[in-house]
């Protein structure tokens, strides 16, 4: 077996050295009737070529984003990732290393985490960022728990523009931990009165911008109201690239910012792995979940980096920890950091403008399809269409025509009574031909 270096002779020699007769002598603590004697009902070993065939066949049954006019977003976005990124993250020293608990031989990981934290803080306009969470949705869940800790209150208010998956994650967690959640109704046109929902029991209010419908939200007044009531504003986003073009939550009064970082450096991957971004104001740093990398010096006075403030964490604090998180999204952070380094703010801003321009062009083109209404006013690279038909059926019909035309909102929230809404995203990968194909197909489907 190609992965196992021991030969039968090795095994015999080693058993002798250990002083037992047979391998199962080492499994003596397993109750005899529980020790398996027959192989499990699974196929035997396969060579590389066979594995490639099996998985290649499965992969071939999926329609890839690059192979069709593609406009699917709603929390994950198709962007072009430079080849440098994937090359570097596959380097043995990054790919096959562990959490940097031995900092002397993990400065590579630690320095990029420090760079990552700095980048995320800059992007969000916040004081500090951690070394990542699993994804945007779990980061949002952790943010609510953190707000509860900070405020010592247990009621979260969720905007109706929050991605329903994010809301579900928060609600599940809150239900389990015995906290309360007030979720405002779905809000396609961003005209909800979230301010009215904030009271003195509120620990936090969670608002997403761009919201799930694509609307850009001004958080300033919500922050003021929240702060006036002793509550925190948690700002969320699912498209980090928007921060190249729109005002960051930190500049609008957010106390905690969470979001999905997938768009920078990471592939779609059918939903994961992604990278959750988590940033906060300096004063809350000791209540943050997750790993933090900090600067220090070594015994010779040279600058170096270590994981720090670990007394917040589960491996030290156990049941008093700020979170149970252990593994995070290390390698996805690295991908993020490399891509962001390549971009720099100049590249990020330009790329964001390309995204926005493509989305504007698409919105204008789709608005010309009879029966279609673009209901999103201010947006980044995603907006909502109101259709004269059931959006889910339209999406299926578009797929039959070779266009992946977006996400029916009803797929995210079947009970929201928004079956005619279609979320449509456009990024730098879309061409004029893609847009024309979408318009033509939509006309046919609706016609």
């Amino acid at each position: 077996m190609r992965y196992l270096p021991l030969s039968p002779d090795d095994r015999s020699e080693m058993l002798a050295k250990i002083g037992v007769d047979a391998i199962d002598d080492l499994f003596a603590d397993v109750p005899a009737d529980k020790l398996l004697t027959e192989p499990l009902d699974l196929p035997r070993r396969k060579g590389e070529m066979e594995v490639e065939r099996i998985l290649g066949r499965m992969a071939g049954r999926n329609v890839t984003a690059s192979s069709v006019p593609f406009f699917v977003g709603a929390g994950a976005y198709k962007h072009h990732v430079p080849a440098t990124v994937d090359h570097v993250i596959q380097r043995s020293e990054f790919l096959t290393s562990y959490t940097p608990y031995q900092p002397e031989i993990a400065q590579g990981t630690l320095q990029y985490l420090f760079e990552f934290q700095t980048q995320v803080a800059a992007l969000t306009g916040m004081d500090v960022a951690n070394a990542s969470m699993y994804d945007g949705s779990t980061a949002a869940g952790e943010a609510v728990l953190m707000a509860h800790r900070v405020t010592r209150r247990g009621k979260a208010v969720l905007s109706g523009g929050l991605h329903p998956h994010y809301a579900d994650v928060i609600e599940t967690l809150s239900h389990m931990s015995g906290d309360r959640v007030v979720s405002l109704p779905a809000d396609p046109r961003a005209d909800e009165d979230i301010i009215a929902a904030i009271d003195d029991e509120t620990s936090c209010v969670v608002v997403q911008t761009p919201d799930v419908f694509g609307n850009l939200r001004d958080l300033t007044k919500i922050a003021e109201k929240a702060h006036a009531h002793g509550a925190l504003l948690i700002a969320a986003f699912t498209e980090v690239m928007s921060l190249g073009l729109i005002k960051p939550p930190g500049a609008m009064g957010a106390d905690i910012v969470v979001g999905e970082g997938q768009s920078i450096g990471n592939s779609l991957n059918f939903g994961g792995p992604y990278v959750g971004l988590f940033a906060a104001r300096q004063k809350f740093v000791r209540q943050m979940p997750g790993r933090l990398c900090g600067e220090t010096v070594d015994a010779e006075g040279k600058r170096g980096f270590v994981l720090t403030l670990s007394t917040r964490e589960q491996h030290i604090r156990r049941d008093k920890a700020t979170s149970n998180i252990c593994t995070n999204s290390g390698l996805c952070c690295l991908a993020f950091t490399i891509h962001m380094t390549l971009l720099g703010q100049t590249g990020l801003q330009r790329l964001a403008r390309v995204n926005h321009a493509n989305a504007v062009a698409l919105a204008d083109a789709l608005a010309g399809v009879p029966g279609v209404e673009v209901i999103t006013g201010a947006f980044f690279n995603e907006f909502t269409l109101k259709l004269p038909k059931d959006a889910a059926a339209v999406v299926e019909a578009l797929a039959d025509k070779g266009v992946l035309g977006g996400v029916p909102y009803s797929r995210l929230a079947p009970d929201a009574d928004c079956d005619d809404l279609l979320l449509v995203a456009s990024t730098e990968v879309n061409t004029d031909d893609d847009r024309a194909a979408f318009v033509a197909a939509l006309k046919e489907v609706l016609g």
Partner: protein
Amino acid sequence: QEEALIFESGRYETTGVDFDEPENFSPRLGGLAREGDIGLPGLSEPETMRHFVRLSQKNYGIDTGLFPLGSCTMKHNARLNERMARLPGFADVHPLQPVSSVQGALELMDELSRYLVTLTGMTSVALSPKAGAHGELCGMMAIKAAIDAKGEGETRRTVLVPESAHGTNPATAALIGFKVRTVPADTDGTVRVQAVKDLIGPDTAAIMLTNPNTCGLFEPEIVEIARALHDAGAYFYCDGANFNAIVGKARPGDLGVDAMHINLHKTFSTPHGGGGPGSGPVVLSQRLAPFAPVPFVTPGAEGLILVEHEKDADEKPFGRITAFHGQMGMYVRALAYMLSHGSDGMKQASEDAVLNANYIRAGLRDLMSQPFGDKPCMHEALFDDSWLKDTGVSTLDFAKAMIDEGYHPMTVYFPLVAHGAMLVEPTESESKSSLDLFIASMRDLAQAAKRGESERFAQAPFHAPRRRLDETRAARQPILKWTPPEPMREAAE
């Protein structure tokens, strides 16, 4: 040469990505345009490449040497698996595409589930947890949901956790409102059924027990412990971090486990990647299966279906724990591992992992001390620091000295039940000659410690990208991001 931070070497106007500026469009940003510098310098592509390659050279990985980190399972990461995960049919697919366009992806999830269920002897699996601790959370939520469904939510509020447990166990239990009671370990490092029974009461919701445990020992009374819990109406959560020792040798389902997470990045060798991403599917017994969260894959009339909402499920999902469907990229890698090994290879891998650990144990037992006596271990060998008594060398010193020998240290000071613990897990990926070399190096170090060559230890490492780092300073005045130097202010002071 020191490697500057990108914030020191980069410039705001530099970019290593070429796009043309879009022409002739009217922004529709509603007055929310960002203004001013973001604070993100860029580097050209050659500079970027060199920066990160040079950073990587300051790291240690499995590919560069033996990585005996106990409990972490640093085994070989096959590049076949990386290649498979990058097939466009897996990597370039959106989680919210029409399910008709992702049947191969659902097939992969279904096949992975079949493997996991077969290997563990359980009823079903919740794939979506993003890492081990997330899997613990998922499993304990399922237990809580089951308790609630029985109307015992108000009474069953206590979770038993052995003192040797991973920190994630009590943290998870506490996160969703359980009280944690610690189960003492026996003198042999395992948990006695009597110790559990002594703590079981009507308030007991579950136990969270690692098996093989964090001392590297198979819990000999595990079946009795499970029965005791079940008899009391409580559940058995098994921390599956060490499942890699028994794959193909024993099935948790046969032992009475109700829920167990599987670290795909340990047992099934998806890369650790310097701290993630992981993946932590949870296998569930028949009692808990109905409560598995959304989403999950199930057969439908025209192919596989993805159940994404509680109302679409026949059972009683307790909710959702993450956006989308989990760590697809890790599923692909794990299934590639399983297909490659097959049932025969996975069993052999477990045996080799256990054999390698015992071989190290046998090679060092005369010099180093085993806290629970000289008896076989599973996939990791535990030593304590009693053999270092009066040498002036601490476990930490010893670990740092290993770096100078070219090795990554073992896990130290965990589990807490062994004083100055050193937990060595070689995994099945090491050859006998590699182990022989490691043993020889450890013996050399151990003898040096006993000879009193303390300066070799106290200051170690000498031959690493950095000497020992000041962690206290880092924690006292945390510097968590780069800030521009302020020469003016400094000059004024």
